[in-house]
């Protein structure tokens, strides 16, 4: 009888750990086309790129693509990289618009779209959950920290 109980306890522990990991959010990997030459980017440049400024990487001007608005991916990325809540992001882009400055990056409807665009579109950079990585895109380390590293903190919300 002890064996099934132990098994159940272990299963519950695993489930609890899994639930905990989910609550903390899945890691969001910054991605570009395979072989683009961009393997690492600073968090500052990543923020600049996704806040409307011109940033180069891998010999090209980077063209940022966002996850769809209101999704866990978008909220998590905006919080971790831009340091803004959805309210603050909204105000930020509307205010830029009134100043006559450039607008927000284009958003795409799914991680699959981001993967495809990152793979095919010149200079494209985006982000998606680690389990959505495909063979024709490559992960970009942020501040030299790879997404496989425990210190990596860009996660879904």
């Amino acid at each position, binding site marked *: 009888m002890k064996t099934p109980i132990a098994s159940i306890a272990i299963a519950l522990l695993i489930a609890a750990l899994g639930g905990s990991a989910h609550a903390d959010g899945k890691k969001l990997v910054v991605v570009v086309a395979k072989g683009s030459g961009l393997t690492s980017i600073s968090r*500052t440049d990543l923020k*600049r790129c996704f806040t409307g400024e011109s940033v180069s990487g891998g010999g090209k001007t980077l063209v940022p693509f966002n*996850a769809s608005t209101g999704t866990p991916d978008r909220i998590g990325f905006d919080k971790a990289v831009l340091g803004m809540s*959805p309210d603050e992001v909204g105000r930020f*882009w509307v205010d830029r*618009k009134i100043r006559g400055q450039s607008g927000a990056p284009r958003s795409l409807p799914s991680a699959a*779209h981001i*993967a495809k*665009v990152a793979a095919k579109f010149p200079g494209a950079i985006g982000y998606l959950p680690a389990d959505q990585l495909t063979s024709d895109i490559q992960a970009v380390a942020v501040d030299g920290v790879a997404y496989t590293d425990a210190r990596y903190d860009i996660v879904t919300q």
Partner: protein
Amino acid sequence: MKRAVLILLILAGSTQRGFARTDDERLAGDPVPPSADDLAKAADAAAEVAAVPVDAPPPTPTNASPPAKASSDDIDLGSLGLDPNASSFDDKLNIYGFADIGFQVLHWTKNPVFFPQDTRSFAVGNFNLYLAKPLTPKARALAEVRFSFVPNGSTRPDGTIVDTTSTDSANFDRPVQWGGIIIERVHVEYDLTEHLTLRAGRWLTPYGIWNIDHGSPTIIGVTRPYIIGEQFFPEHQTGLDLFGNHYESGFKIDYHLTASNGRGATEATVDRDNKLAFGGRLQVETPWGVKVGGSYYRGRYTGLPPAPGMPAPTYREAAYGGDAQFDNGALHLQAELIVRDRDYQFGPPVTFDPAARDLGYYGLAGYRLQRFWNVMPYAFYESYEPADRATFSRVYAINAGLNFRPTSTLILKLQGTYPWFRDDGVGLLAGQTIEIFSAQASWVF
């Protein structure tokens, strides 16, 4: 004050109902919470109106559908307007803008004789329309026009009031009052390098914080501090602006160099003195949320001769400005100091002291809460010492208010202002004080 609050609440209530209907339409089938999604959509709407990053082909309209479970192979980039083989770019004309309406109650504590002691009025302040269009991957154009009811109701120097009432032949010759159009800016830009862009046309002078940032939705208070409106620097100039920015070790440097017709009675079309004005701005942004900037302008103003054969008023001027901002989470601090020196050569006003100096400054503090419609309580202190002391030698003011932002595109403000004029016997308003209560609703469309 009670009236101002009541009116603001009515304005807010009616506008919020409109937003609620829009949200219902937009959120159909969308699983995300309405408030966050509304703001995020507003952000994406902003993406639609301004330049897409260079080299990018034209985007297609984005639907607010929930994330789709698409296979990468099923996705047609061409249908998204992102065909990597396409040679086109986003050349879509974007039209957007902002507007505001306000209500103000003003009371002079001593009867000023020359104007009413008490006024209360609604006013449509701004109705500005933007037209933005990328021309090539490296060039773009922007125009901003303000539709206005002036000159109707404006006061002439002799005290009479302009009346633009005309008859409308399309409506049985019934009376109609016409207004005007103010071209805030119209320019074209070309990216010379990643760090340098050339702008040509009529542009907002790059100085301080709240000149380029002039739209009522982005101004924290109901109005900008008085000295900003006094135009120690010209608000607009016509000419060239070479600008850019550079990042290094977490520091961002923004720079501008300008050459223009300078200030003048007809500066947008004719430089009446044939002398260029020059200026510049440098701003450093640190990784700790501090921005510090300095601006300079030097030129000659030339007006129109008061009568044929008479000399036109003209003076040389130099303006200097310093500004600082600090943002840390919800806390926002900002301050500006502006000085202008003028040297008249012909036609100075009788009371003007040549080579005198205008000086003004303000300091503002605000704290944006995440509740009560994202309210920001704010306060600012300002001071202005004009060179021309015919009206007053110095004025001070304390302003305090609330800036609500229930959505990113709707801003509601309440403000109390208490200016007092130095009681030194100099000028018509010496010793006067004013009590002003203002409410404003502004929105972005």
